[in-house]
């Protein structure tokens, strides 16, 4: 402290700081320029694989592995899609992924927000113990339950069925925690009391009041859930046996590692699976990142 105080005194009393007024500004400019170059370079590195994906999807495999490699897109996208459709029922796989990710998201948002509301706004015996228990289940890694879960699905006759992927994922601890934290802070108790006086039942309060106020948290959780399931590999990989019931991730996986992988077709499929997600993300990115930012540090 003393040393720093002395420094201020030096700064204030000696004319040295004012002798070269341009130098501080120049240094600021310089570090600004360096930062711009580095941070923009990093952003371009984040983008490049997407650009490369487009190049590969529009060219033949021979082109892609020629030397030097092509740096601009070609015109073979339709042909690549055609050869993709010859090796996979890709339209069907697409529909599977959409229905699977959407169903899980809708169910999970409903059950998680309902439970989050109960934990945030009700007093009931055992509440804190039940909530602590719920949090502790988040520590269980998916790998532990994977094998018996698969056997269970076999007993239920759910192999090759989307019930196996949707029903066990319809409610989860993380989402309940996420919704509880938001609802506890964002929904005033007076509003709930007022709604009750107006004759709202408990479920009415949930769907007329809580859902509306909690919509930012529901939005971010919904996107995370949709992405997580759309991108999921392990579950669909062990449950789905028949190419017509594959999700996009499993379908694309089957094309990798063939002796003669058709990279053009593979990448055309990848582009088709990634582009709608990217467009959706870019459309809502600002709000989504704001939601993640607000929620990500709740655990600390």
């Amino acid at each position, binding site marked *: 402290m003393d040393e*720093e105080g002395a420094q201020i005194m030096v700064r204030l009393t000696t004319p040295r700081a004012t002798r070269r007024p341009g130098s501080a500004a120049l240094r600021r400019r310089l570090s600004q320029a360096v*930062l*711009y170059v*580095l*941070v923009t370079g990093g952003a371009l590195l*984040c*983008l490049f*694989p997407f650009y*490369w*994906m487009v190049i*590969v999807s529009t060219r033949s495999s021979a082109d*892609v*592995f020629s*030397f030097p*490699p092509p740096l601009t897109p070609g015109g073979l996208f339709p042909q690549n899609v055609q050869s993709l459709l010859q090796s996979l029922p890709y339209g069907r796989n697409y529909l599977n992924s959409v229905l699977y990710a959407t169903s899980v998201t809708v169910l999970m948002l409903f*059950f998680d927000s*309902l439970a989050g509301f*109960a*934990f945030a706004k*009700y007093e009931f*015996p055992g509440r804190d113990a039940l909530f602590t228990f719920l949090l502790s289940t988040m520590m269980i*890694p*998916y*790998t*532990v*339950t*994977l*094998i*018996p*879960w698969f*056997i*269970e699905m076999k007993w239920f006759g759910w192999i090759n069925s989307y019930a196996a992927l949707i029903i*066990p994922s319809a*409610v989860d*601890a993380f989402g*309940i925690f996420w919704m509880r934290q938001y609802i506890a802070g964002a929904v005033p108790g007076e509003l709930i009391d007022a709604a009750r006086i107006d004759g709202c039942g408990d479920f009415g309060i*949930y769907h007329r009041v809580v859902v509306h106020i909690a919509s930012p948290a529901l939005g971010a959780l919904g996107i995370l859930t949709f992405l997580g399931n759309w*991108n999921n*590999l*392990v579950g669909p990989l*062990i449950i789905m046996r028949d190419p017509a019931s594959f999700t*996009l*991730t499993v379908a*694309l996986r089957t094309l*990798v*590692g063939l002796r003669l992988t058709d*990279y053009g077709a*593979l*990448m055309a499929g*990848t582009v088709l*699976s*990634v582009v709608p997600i*990217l467009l959706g*993300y870019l459309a809502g*990115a600002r709000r989504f*990142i704001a939601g993640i*930012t607000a929620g*990500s*540090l709740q655990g*600390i």
Partner: protein
Amino acid sequence: MAAIVTTPRPRRRALASAWRKYKWPYLFISPFYISFLIFGLFPLLAALYLGFHSWDGMSAPHWVGLRNYVRLLTVDQFFLQSLANTFILGVMCLVPKLVLALLVAVAINSGLLRGKTLYQVLYFLPIVTSPVAVAIVFLTIFGQRTGILNYVLAGVGLQPVRWLVEPWTIKPAITLLIVWHEVGWYMVIYLAGLQSIPQDIYDAASVDGANGWRRLLHITLPMLAPVILFTVVVDIIGELQVFAEPFVLVGPSGGPDRQGLTMAMYLFQNAFVGMKMGYAAAQAYVMFAIIAFLSLLNIKVFGRSGTR
């Protein structure tokens, strides 16, 4: 006699009135506990049971005691290798991922750059795509013989590397993929942490004459320490279960010399390819023990930092 008959009645009445009073919250939270019982607790106990048995998934399981565990931890070279691979890969990914995320977050938050939101959106872009899609793209970036990365290396005068063929480059290749994929996620978390540091601390430090570096070292990093710790723990737990990226990039068996074989991949191999369900269940519990240990360590550390 009468007393015996009548005592349960008030209790039942009390229970009934409690139920009327608390019916809704219990109904609202019940789906989770029902689902956990069926799809969480049952598999958890079944895995414990299976771990002490030898089972091919069809015939009756038979008891082998601790033999699965002993074999895993002493004899099974593949398991020990997958354990080492997972930890080495974890550290190789964690350090650059978090350091880069922190540097970018500090740079974006410094106030020197415009377009903060645009940068966030761009850096976050990779994480919204699936590990499978990302691994397929990187498959062609690393190339079989040539590939775009080798083209870049040749451009700066380096020899081409057969990334997915040489055992020693398998881990760096997986690392590059995972770091690229996840750096934006941690960047956004750090940015959230940085924004929660009160501005007046910085103002006071500036008045005291602290320059950029000293503010970073003496204010930003200490204030961000809980967030950094949180990301380290979350990331380690995630890395210990890594599956999709190496599975697609180097293949189910882990590539040359199994350098890319992670614990989750080996478990998958045992359970669903080798049909050694009991053995794989034991392996799952070893992983569980490691992750639980780290989680408890985390709670301990956080508990302490909370009281400080």
